[in-house]
């Protein structure tokens, strides 16, 4: 692996960039692995990285049905924050935000984590109550989040309209300054490169068609488009398709899969300094390094595995953005797309062992799992390596849906992010 730095860039520039090496090699699957990870998204690749780096397990394959990072990791709007309400969530997401701060250096890959701040707008008394509850809970949990008056919101984000005549006037907002965005592809690539350098096999364009079990019920390996591959442990991290994969091991998951759409505008010079989200009008926005306004909202109404998504939701989302930022009305939409997200009943993730010995699952991130990528991958790796959860992901069991010990972020997640 070539070390990335300004110096190596200059050196290679002088030699016509002919000496760069592959960031990850193309490999054929071996007959057997210690761990097979299904799904080469940020979460799966990240788990491979941490397994190799922190647990010394390197005989790993990460298998994806498509190209690595081509799932939700490469489709999301990259909002990163940790000002969640419940202690369990705050701990998990804040763990992730801690890891985000140094991820570029850890991976030697610039993931462009940008501390731009995430501002969540309150438009009615109910929002104010709910956000203040978050601010108070976050403060006592040591998580950065603070209440801004509407004038302070405007100072922080000048394009914002705080006109009292708006259909849903802004009453104030909750700001997490430590929050921000990152470059999604770089996260997948950085993890892939680092894992591959440590000996992990990354196998693309190879769908896992079934999980096979031993007669005693424990996991035996996976059936794939390239044949059966043996494994001591199988870890599934397949986002919107997780329930389909897990079903082949007779594990039913409480997941519903929905299309979630997002869009970008044509690029413009810097005009939008932070991330703004609004539950009341149902949309959120930031500006990418390239200059595009990046916009998203809630899921489509109906469950589906089609990545097409409908027009009505997009109409509403754009209208919502122009409602809070009327000056963007003459901007143009460049591109829109959809991903399939896996939604749990309590809108919190599952990072857990399963009833099948040797089978692990990390899913249920729904509309907001990019931000958790390093934290989820890190604790998932721990869970796989030790066959026991890390204290941070211990509450995020599959069992909780049976016991009722939910981590209900649903109320706070009226909008995707």
């Amino acid at each position, binding site marked *: 692996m070539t070390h990335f730095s300004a110096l190596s860039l200059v050196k290679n520039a002088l030699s016509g960039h002919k000496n760069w090496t592959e960031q990850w*090699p193309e490999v054929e699957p071996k007959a057997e692995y210690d761990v097979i990870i299904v799904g080469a998204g940020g979460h799966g690749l990240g788990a491979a990285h941490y397994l190799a780096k922190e647990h010394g397990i390197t005989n790993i394959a990460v298998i994806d049905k498509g*190209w690595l990072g081509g799932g939700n990791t490469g489709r999301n709007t990259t909002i990163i924050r940790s000002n969640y309400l419940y202690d369990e969530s705050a701990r998990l997401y804040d763990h992730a935000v801690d890891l985000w701060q140094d991820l570029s250096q850890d991976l030697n890959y610039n993931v*462009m984590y940008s501390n731009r701040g995430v501002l969540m707008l309150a*438009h009615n008394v109910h929002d104010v109550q709910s956000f203040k509850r978050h601010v108070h809970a976050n403060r006592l949990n040591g998580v950065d989040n603070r209440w801004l008056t509407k004038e302070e919101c405007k100072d922080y984000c000048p394009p914002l309209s705080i006109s009292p005549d708006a259909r849903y006037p802004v009453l104030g907002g909750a700001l997490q300054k430590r929050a921000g965005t990152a470059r999604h*592809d770089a996260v997948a690539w950085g993890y892939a490169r680092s894992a591959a350098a440590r000996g992990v096999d990354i196998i693309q364009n190879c769908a896992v068609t079934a999980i096979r079990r031993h007669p005693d019920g424990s996991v035996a390996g996976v059936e794939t488009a390239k044949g059966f591959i043996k494994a001591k442990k199988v870890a599934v991290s397949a986002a919107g398709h997780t329930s389909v994969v897990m079903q082949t091991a007779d594990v039913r998951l409480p997941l519903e899969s929905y299309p979630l759409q997002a869009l970008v505008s044509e690029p413009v010079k*810097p005009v939008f300094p932070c991330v703004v989200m609004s539950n009341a009008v149902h949309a959120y926005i930031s500006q990418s390094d390239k200059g595009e306004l990046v916009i998203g909202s809630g899921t489509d109404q109906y469950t589906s595995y089609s990545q097409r998504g409908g027009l009505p939701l997009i109409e509403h989302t754009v209208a919502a953005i122009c409602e809070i930022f009327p000056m963007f009305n*003459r901007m143009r*939409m460049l591109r*829109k797309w959809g991903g399939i997200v896996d939604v749990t009943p309590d809108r919190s993730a599952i990072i857990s062992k399963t009833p099948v010995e040797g089978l692990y699952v990390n899913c249920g991130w729904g509309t907001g799992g990019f931000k958790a990528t390093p934290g989820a991958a890190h604790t998932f790796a721990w869970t796989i390596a030790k066959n026991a959860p890390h204290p941070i992901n211990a509450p995020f069991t599959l069992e909780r849906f049976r016991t009722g010990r939910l981590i209900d972020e649903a109320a706070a997640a009226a909008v995707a992010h």
Partner: protein
Amino acid sequence: MSRFRVRGKGRVDAAKPMIFTFDGTPYTALKGDTVASALLAHGVHLMGRSFKYHRPRGAIAAGSEEPNALIGTRRGDGRFEPNTRATVQEVWGGLQTTSQNKFPSLRFDVGAVNDAAYMLFSAGFYYKTFMWPKSFWDRVYEPFIRAAAGLGVAPTEEDPDSYASRYLHCDLLIVGAGPAGIAAALAASATGRSVVLVDENAEIGGTLLSEPDAQIDGTPAWDWLAQSRADLLAAGVKIMPRTTAIGYYHQNMIGMVQKLTDHLTELPADTPRERLWRVRAKQVVLAQGALEKPLVFHGNDRPGVMLAGAAQTYLNRYGVKVGDSPAVVTSHDSAWFAAFDLADAGARVQVIIDTRAQVRADLQEAARARSIPVRLGHTVTATAGRLRVKNLRVNAVSGGHVGAGTWINCDALLMSGGWTPSLHLFSHTKGRLAWDDALTTFLPEHTPEACVIAGAARGLWGVQAALNDGAARAREALDALGATVQAAVYAVAKDRTGTGVSLHELPTDRSASKAKAFVDFQNDVTAKDLRLAVREGMRSIEHVKRYTTNGMATDQGKMSNINGLNIAADALGKPQPQVGLTTFRPPYTPTSFGAFCGYHRGDHFEVLRRTQIDPWAEENGAVFEPVGQWRRARYFPQGNEDMDAAVRRECAATRAGIGMFDASTLGKIEVVGPDAVEFMNRMYTNPWTKLAPGRCRYGLLLGDDGFIRDDGVIGRLDADRFHVTTTTGGAARVMNMMEDYLQTEWPDLEVWLTSTTEQWSTIALNGPNVVKLLAPLVEGVALNEADFPHMSCVECTVAGMPARLFRVSFTGEVGFEINVAAPLGRQLWETLWAAGQPHGITAYGTETMHVLRAEKGYIIVGQDTDGTVTPYDAGMGWAVAKSKPDFVGMRGLARPDLKAANRRHLVGLLTEDHSLLEEGAQIVFDPDQPIPMTMRGHVTSAYATGTTGRPIALGLVEGGHEKLGETVYIPMPDRTIAAKITSSVFFDPDNTRLKI
């Protein structure tokens, strides 16, 4: 006349000159010109700067696929938009345009230093650096990258224009009005089916607009076009120019955006700028044509280098010669025709360079006749010229060897790498493509939607082939519609068909790793960047795209995708079909946000629901608050009262006399049918079987998880009829939930649900004097404990109006809710208002309602509960039937954690220092612990201004029901507040005041 305008050519109107400005300089244009054609008519090629290297750029195309010539367009205050394609924007008199991404000027741009350091800015360079020192990322590197990126500047003012949207249903939608689309429309026009023909251009015709010499069935192309247009209109075909089909959605739904005013000098009054059409077509013909491919060679991006087809269009459609001494480089026959047209228009064509060793004899003959030098089997290896191409370097190629280069002067370089079918909308349908080896391109194979592809869009070249295919494909679509037509057969003379070869990159004698051979012009992606990506392990075309940003510019890859794919495939050593195309995403071309917003702006962003009584509240000075889509009167200040003072007064008046409240926003659902009681038993936690008609009951609704979702008083009017009320915000949700259960879980139940929220105006009267006011007005029931006890309901008349009268209380006072037909609401309100004056009637709003109910410990779902609260947690176990076999949430409630000790219970909180708690504040047991603290609950409601003489609060506290009397702590940023846990009922715990 401008220097490069060719008299007698083009469809522009020489009699209608106009003035517009570009970077402040005025230019003349003719009606029909685009900004690009008008600038070219003045010899101006330099129109913009590229994204990364800030290289000078001119128009490369003549249509919506243009990646370079992006400009800002302005029409006075508020009407500015960045990144407009100069090749699409029609000129109108007074249009102001500006170039972008330059400082200080388009001709001299300091950003061009990037160009000198281009070897550093290779694909993905930013992933490899800017990591040290870490703190520099946020403060130095990222701001620098951001400032350099972006193209135009965002608008800063509010948009004064309006936008519209419409639905359209038709039998046949034809996208693209070139020869194929027009022939399809002609075929369908006689069938009596509804036909819509759309094209993004200002006029229909497509290729025909650039091919005036073709003769269709003996008629010159433009005459044929005019006649066809007239025929189609006469046959009732809806022709929509300036309309772009932006996306193809499920079940033949096509989104289209029509531009209505951007081409007009005078803005008509009351006309929207754009209109979004949501079209549901039974059948669709996609005749989007083909896009010309640029050639990839060093210096292929200088102003003056453009597609040969574009030059032909500028000449024939706009009457503009793109240069006096153009040169041509091509691997396809079609560019030869552009050269001939230019030569015939008086240009001295310097050379035709064809990469092929063999070219049709007739073309060579035609070149000779025009004295155009021809070089077959040659390549172009460089161009020169800072702001405009001034010469090119040409080399012979033989046996794979590139010979020495010689320079040829030119003032424009026309290139053609052949044509690629335009399959964007097809691709939106998740249509499958198949690689065609002969044509070296992808062709449509299968789509799940009811659509056919016609003409150049499936690889057929030439006007005759397009016409005949349009007719034939339309026939297929019409067959599917049950309409039979004869397929017309067209004969076209002077049809300029041709063939070519597909070259991935022009061969060169120089180092390919240093060449600035652009593939994605706007994003400055070169062939070497693509190779670098592959070298670094990017094997999927999607990785190549994302790593290099090839195809991600505002032309959405129209110019770059195929060349990018070919070069990546070479580098990978794989055939194209194994590499695959990236997915095309809607919209087809960048589309104004305003068009998506449509009517949903400002006051119309979302309907503002108002009750019938709302105008009275407004006239009487109410302060409103939004609650869901409703606005509700929050309080009615008198004089200089602030909210606290008003609420204190309203509360006291209600407890002492009569308070009147507009409760019309409460959700209302009529549940009717022989199985209505069974349905209610299954939906709500409470038992309903024994509730007698004429009585009502507080109902609690859970989700299937066992947590409280909604509540409301429900009256049984008859054995088979319930009047259900829900929370204001929950009305639609509850209705949906009920329908969902009824239709999917219990379809056997005979029950009908009707949302009646809007049908009733509801007025709540509360207070000790209510009966005095109401009794004289009510006919049909006597208002006393015996005839109409608390929790009764009846149909009667109130002030002569038919009404449903409920005796209920959300305040702890004697209370009634009167429902009358919605339009009578205000009349009843005013009648009661007048009649109540002697009894001290006072109007109150939602804030007083909140205070009064909190004093009684009544919950507000969504405030005191949050989706994690069981009926037991809320102290309402009494509302859960003990002996019903089932109800929604029963199983959820049985889960161990929902029965665990130490759940959070709803309790009252009284602060020891009588300070007001903040809603949302967190509760701890041990105030001295370090952060992170163990939180044990939170404050859900808190009010300073009740009738109990001190601030009260409700909260959810761990094990709260067992901790009455204990002290808990609320740590605030500046201090910690101590509060005692109390009963949640602060006022009249024995309900003595509910008695008449």
